Structure formats: C-alpha cells, structure tokens
C-alpha cells in the first residue's frame, strides 16, 4: 500500500469500467473518477517531492523481466498537468455532454484516455510505452469523432492511420533496441546504450514516429483538422495533453536513454523544424477564419517552441544551466497545456451560444459572455508569452539559453513568433471585444464557463508565480543517464 504508483492508472481505469457498466450514472462516475485520479496523482507527487524518484516493480519481478513503473520530477509534472487539465475539462464536459446520447461512451473513453496518459507518463518500459501509445491513440481517435460530423470522422480516420504508422515506427525501434541490448527496461537501457549504428537507427525510427504524433512541422498536417473538428472538451485535451505525451517521450528518449547518442546536428535539425513550425503555425493561425482552427495552428506553433529547446539542451553542459533550460521547456509545455485547454473550452462555449466560430463574426462576445472573453484574453496572454504567465518565464530562460550557447539563429525565430502570436491573439480579441450581435446574450455565468477561466488563471498566475516548483522537480530523475 505504501507505493502509490499504480493508483493513477488504476483509478481512472476502474472508473471507466464502472461507467461502462452503469451508463446512466456515467457523468457522476466520470467526475468522481477524474477527481480521484487527481487525488492519486497528488499522492504520488507528494512522495516524489519528499523522497525523490520512486519505482514500482509490477508483479514483484525485477525490472527487465517484469515491467517497472517510475515516477520522477518530469513525469510528476506531466501527470499533474494532465490530471488538473482533465479534471477541469471533465467539469466542462459534464455540461457539454449532458444532453448527448453518447454521454456514457464519452465518459468511458474519457477515463480510458486519462488512464493511457497516466500509464504513459509512469511507464518505465519501452514496449509498455508502445501499448500506452496505442491506447492513447485509439481512445483519442474515438473521442475525436464523437461530434459525428463528416469532417470530424474523416479527420479522425486520418489521425488514426498516421498514428498507427507512427506507432509502427516506434515499435520497430523498440525491436532494434531489444535486439541490441536485450532488455526493454528504460533504466537499464539508460546505462547500457552507447553510440553506434543500432542506437542511431533505433533512435531515428522512434523519434520519427513520435514526431508524427507530436505534429512537428512538416508532419503537422493531420493536427488542425483533427483538433478543430472534435467536440470542444476533446479538442482541449487533444491539444493540451495528447500531443504533449509524444513530446514527453521524445524528451525521455533524447535526454535519458540516448543522451550519449544524440549529436548536435540531429538536435539542430529538429530545432530548425521547430523554428519553421513556430513561424508557419503562427502565420497560418493569423490567417485562420475559424476560432478552433486558429487554436489548432497555434498548437502547431507552440509545439515548435518546445523543439527549439533541443539544440540548446544538446549544446549545454550537463548541470544546472541545462536543468534550468529543461525546466523552462517543461514549464512552457505546462503553460501551453493549461492555456490551450482553456482556449478550446472558451471556443466551445462560444460555439454553443453562437452556433459558429467564425472569428470575423464574433462581435459582441465580450458583452454576452464576459467571462469567456476574459478567458480568451488570459489564454492569449499565455500563448504570446507575456507576464505573468508561465510561458513568459520559459521564454526568458529560452532566450537566456540562446545567449549562453551563442546559437543566435533562434533569436529572430522567437522574436517573430512572439509578435505573430501577439498578432493572432489580439486580432481575435479585437473582434471579440468589438460591439456586435454575433453572440446571443447570456443570462448569467454558466457553469461551463468556470473551468475554462480557472485553467486560464492557472496558466497565467499559478504557473507564473509558483513556477519555481518546476525547476525544483525537474532535476529529480529516475534515469541515471541524464538530467531528465
């Protein structure tokens, strides 16, 4: 009982099964399950903060033969993000899906998605990661097509096929690793892997697969249709969490397992792609005519920022400066998670009220839905990277790493990306705060508006003023190989 690592996986899974068995009470089971998952994650986090990384050898078999779950600073941060975001989105969804006849299926799949995320963040075994990736992908696909429109189905189908291809690439990498090193346990691999053809090819295959899943330019093309056509709560978790899961895995692989294999050139290539993603994604977001499409392209850009860190991390010597940069990366990911989910929820509220999400016709939103307009503004602040949001601190450290490493090339990318983000955010706010009749009047603050604004506040205030927790947690590593 004193090792709590299984609970963040077991609790949502058990709730999912219960929700499947008692469909009429699924909403309550879903909310309760999300809340209890949150409690489980808090339990794990407390233990990690108090006593460092923890490991659970499942079935009592030594890791290697058996599977180990591991929690360290990075995974705890990701867990906290996913559970907090999903809790808030669950509250929103309880209103959004209250009349839907697919309500019970939504909750089951929702809880399965949380299970998959938690399992992924805790897994310490490469093949197990493949299974969690597949679970994540399949449940995300099904959730994405709950809207039922033709576009959403088509987008979900493309997402599924690409996701499968990506998983296959990951899996063949796993096969090569097993061939070369004879184990799947990540801690053992972190110590064993050394530079060589096996590690090289395996890393590039696995990274390739994960790049598809994390939608790095030019592999981003599936993301905007899938994220913008899904029901709002689903879009929120897809953009905020599911994409992050792939980025998390890339970080794990690059920093912990393959840290001796990664070369500056490889990191530079990914950084360049990230840079293009920042510019391209922001530019298209600026042209977007629909709110949700804009948010989706903004996700493409934000993912690009995360990859900008890779060449910097590769250039920094192991130690405090690198941990600071890594912490900034994680903080940026977390802030984006909270902000983007808030953004999508707000977009969902607007869509339900106005019946559309065409940006040019959003006049009057601020008057009809002041709280939602405020949410959009706050989330926008976090997307641009203005204070007091967490992304401001992250960008500060990003710039700082640029100066330390002397990789000046990223400076214009960051600058232009920030200005473009400002442009698309304030373009939206300009329409939303303009007078008009685009959105019908609301009688009071709806229950569904509150989770969104809380998420946005978390992104701007919580992660701004209490961000140092991130930097305290990040150096706690379960893998000997590196600082991640």
């Amino acid at each position, binding site marked *: 009982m004193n090792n709590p690592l299984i609970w963040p996986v077991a609790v949502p899974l058990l709730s999912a099964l219960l929700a499947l068995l008692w469909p009429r009470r699924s909403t309550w089971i879903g909310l309760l399950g999300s809340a209890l998952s949150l409690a489980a994650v808090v339990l794990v986090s407390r233990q990690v903060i108090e006593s460092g990384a923890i490991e659970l050898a499942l079935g009592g078999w030594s890791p290697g033969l058996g599977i180990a779950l591991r929690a360290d600073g990075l995974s705890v941060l990701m867990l906290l993000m996913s559970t907090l975001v999903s809790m808030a989105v669950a509250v929103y969804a309880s209103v959004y899906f209250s009349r839907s006849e697919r309500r019970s299926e939504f909750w089951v799949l929702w809880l399965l998605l949380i299970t998959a995320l938690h399992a992924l963040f805790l897994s310490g075994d490469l093949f197990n990661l493949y299974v969690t990736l597949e679970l994540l992908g399949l449940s995300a696909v099904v959730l994405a097509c709950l809207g039922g429109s033709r576009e959403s189905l088509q987008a979900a189908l493309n997402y599924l096929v690409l996701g499968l291809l990506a998983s296959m690439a990951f899996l063949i990498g796993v096969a090569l690793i097993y061939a070369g090193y004879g184990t799947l346990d990540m801690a053992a691999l972190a110590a064993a892997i050394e530079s060589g053809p*096996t590690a090289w090819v395996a890393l590039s295959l696995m990274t390739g697969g994960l790049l598809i899943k994390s939608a790095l330019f030019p592999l981003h093309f599936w993301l905007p249709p899938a994220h913008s056509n899904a029901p709002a709560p689903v879009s929120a978790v897809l953009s905020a969490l599911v994409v992050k899961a792939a980025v998390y895995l890339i970080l794990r692989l690059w920093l912990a397992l393959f840290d001796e294999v990664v070369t500056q050139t490889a990191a530079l290539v990914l950084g360049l792609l990230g840079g293009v993603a920042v510019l391209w994604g922001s530019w298209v977001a600026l042209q977007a005519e629909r709110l949700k499409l804009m948010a989706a392209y903004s996700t493409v850009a934000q993912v690009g920022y995360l990859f900008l860190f890779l060449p910097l991390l590769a250039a920094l010597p192991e130690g405090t400066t690198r941990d600071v940069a890594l912490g900034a990366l994680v903080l940026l990911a977390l802030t984006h998670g909270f902000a983007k989910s808030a953004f999508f929820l707000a977009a969902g509220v607007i869509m339900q009220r106005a019946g559309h999400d065409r940006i040019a016709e959003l006049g009057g939103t601020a008057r009809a839905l002041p709280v939602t307009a405020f949410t959009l503004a706050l989330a926008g602040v976090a997307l641009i990277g203005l204070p007091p949001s967490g992304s401001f601190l992250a960008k500060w450290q990003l710039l700082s790493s640029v100066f330390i490493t002397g990789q000046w090339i990223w400076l214009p990318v960051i600058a232009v990306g920030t200005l473009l983000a400002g442009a698309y955010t304030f373009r939206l706010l300009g329409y939303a705060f303009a007078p008009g009749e685009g959105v019908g009047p609301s009688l009071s603050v709806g229950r569904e508006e509150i989770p969104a604004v809380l998420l946005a506040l978390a992104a701007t205030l919580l992660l701004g003023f209490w961000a140092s927790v991130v930097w305290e947690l990040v150096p706690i590593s379960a893998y000997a190989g590196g600082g991640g």
Partner: protein
Amino acid sequence: MNLTLLPDLLLAGMLIGLAWAVLNSDDLRRGVVLFIAFGLLLAIVWARLLAPDLALAEAAIGAGLSGALLLVALRDGSGGDQRSAKRSTLNRWLIDLFVLVMTCLIGWVLWLTIYAEPVERLAQLANAMLERSGVSNPVTAVLLNYRAYDTLLELVVVLAAVLGVLVVGRERRGYREPGPVFHGLVHWLVPLLIVTAGYLLWVGAHAPGGAFQAGATLAAAGIVLRLAGYDAAGLPDGRLLRWLLVAGTGVFLLLGLGMTVSGGGFLQYPEAWSGSLILVIEVAATASIAAALVLAYRGGRSDGWLLVDEKDKNREISS
C-alpha cells in the same frame, strides 16, 4: 550455398512476393484475399521459427479474423471514395529512395546485432523463473505474469477499440437463412469451435494456446453463427453484454489491486495461487476478447446497446 537454407529462403521470398502482391493489387477484393493468404503463410513462418503460440494466434487473429473483418468491410463498401489523387513523380521517387535507405539501414543494424557477440537477452531469465510463475508455457508466463501489466493495458486497448466501433457504427444487416448444407456445417462447427476454444484456454498453461487464441476461436464461432443467420451471433444484449466486455479488464484489474491491498505489489500473485489466478484471468479475458471481436464483426451497436438506459428511464418514470 547452404542447401538447408533453401526452405527458409523460399518462405521468405514467398512472404515478400505475397506482400508485394497484396500492396500493389488494384482490385481490393483480390488484395484482401491475398492478405489472408499472407497471414496463413506467416503462420507457417511462425511455426518454422518455433513460435507455435504465434502460429495459432496468427492463423486465428491475423489471417482469420482480420480477413473476416476486411471481407465484410468489402461487402458494405461501394468503394465510393476511390479518389486517385496520384502523388507526383518526384514524391514517389523520394518515397522510394527513403524506403530503400531505411530498409538498408535497418537491415544493416539487424545484420550487425545478429552476428555480434550474442547479447544475453531475457530468455534465460524467463525460463529460469518459470517455476515461480505458476505456468509452464513460457509465453503464457510472460503474458500473464512477468509482463501482465502489458496484457492488462492491451485488453483496455481492445475495449477502447470496440467502444469506438459501437459509438461510430450501427449493426450491419444480418444474413438470410442459409441452405441445408451450410446449416448442417454450422451445427457441427460451432460446438466444435467452442470446445476447441476451451481446450486452447486450458492448455495454454503448459503448451501453446491461451486466452487470445481461445478468444479468437470463440469469436470465430460467433461469426459462423451470424453467417448462418443468427444475427446476434451468440452475444447477449444490454447489461449482460456490458458485463461481458468489462469482464477481462475488470477481473484482471481487481485481482491486481487485490494483491496490492493484501500487501503484495500490484499483480504480484502469491506463488501457490498464481496458476489458478492466471486461469481465472484468462477465462475472463477470453470472454471479453471474443465478445469484442464479434461486436467488431457485427459492425456496431444494436438497438439493445442503449437498452440499459431505457430501462433505467422507465424505472425512473414509474417510480
């Protein structure tokens, strides 16, 4: 040229040839049929590589059920969206180049690892611990004991997929009453399949077989029933169906958690009990897998799927 390698080379060549034919046939039906043949050939390869468990599973799942699903998908497809937006020649060239380079790289790495100093993989450890695992079939030991957590999550994957099928689609139209010959066959075949499934399940502890093979066989029985005009394909409706779907994951999870609560780790069976516990889990898993596969074949939810809600609603109204 070593003559003993000839059969292997032949098999490998046939696999590649068949795959090429599958992937390059313009006629979909032909592609699917060839794919089934490909699966069967693969089953032979598994047998050749001393993987009988896989041979069984491939024949049942890879060739059999995948084939059935693909064929029935052909039946309801008009093939309407045959958009042939051809890639440009340059793109095709680039893709071919990429494929060639990657194949060479992967092949090179495999060459290196196979001829390198033999790595001590998990084989010895897995076989050495077999006594403590409660079963004597090493594959079952890995699946349901050493790496039981993988299997648990895999059952969840099945559950998620079948829920997706239920959400997206409605049940396909049933088949009409078959002729006497087929009818006779069904009467023979279904009981035989069920018995075989039970046998595979039981034998899995010490010989090739296990929950997946058994589940697939059972599902095959369901498919045969549906082809014979029994539209429900042997599945219950409403709440019972939900229980059936949940059973595999649920039993697995609860037993695992039970271990945790009673003081061990998650899924850490007491050694004396592990054999029976594994069997219990396998029985439940077989039922769930079979139900899921049959549902996938049926193509979606029936009117009975939401019946649970209706009943509850009626109760609410009457009270």
